[in-house]
């Protein structure tokens, strides 16, 4: 899983029926120091994250697990909203 920040969203009326009802947010991946790293990507949202929020997201087939038993075709999903990052 990786840290990221919600920086926007995507609207699509025509979509695969299995993606119906999903919110699609644009996420900027961040380092633990909260610096931008890597390309922005589109994530499905399993937590109700909002604009500008610090989140963590997972990639791969596991990204569709939060929506089980529905099979949602997503390879990147927001699975948590971060309250605090503490580095020791």
């Amino acid at each position: 899983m990786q840290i990221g920040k919600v920086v926007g969203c995507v609207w699509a009326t025509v979509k695969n029926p299995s993606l119906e009802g999903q919110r699609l947010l644009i996420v900027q991946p961040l380092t633990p120091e909260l610096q931008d790293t890597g390309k922005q990507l589109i994530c499905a949202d399993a937590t109700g994250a909002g604009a500008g929020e610090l989140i963590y997201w997972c990639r791969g087939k596991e990204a569709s697990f939060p929506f089980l038993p529905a099979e949602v075709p997503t390879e990147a999903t927001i699975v948590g909203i971060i309250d605090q990052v503490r580095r020791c």
Partner: protein
Amino acid sequence: MILGRVVGNIVATRKDPRLEGFKLLVVKPVAPDGKEESGYVIAVDTVQAGNRELVIVVSGSSARMADGCKDKPVDASIVGIVDSVRLDER
């Protein structure tokens, strides 16, 4: 998932029988701010996307979870046609 722009299509007569009847499109990745990125991907179309349309592409094993792609040899699917993209001020 990534955004992409449809820039072409693929015609293949000989292919895996499980891919018969699928539309294969050439998609160029696009950043959310609209800039085209390097590389291409061949994606199975599940939403009847057209040329130059901005689409959502899901890749990896999740691409098989799209309706109609179950158990097909597919690693990239077009699952949505983008109406609009909103990028917040940072």
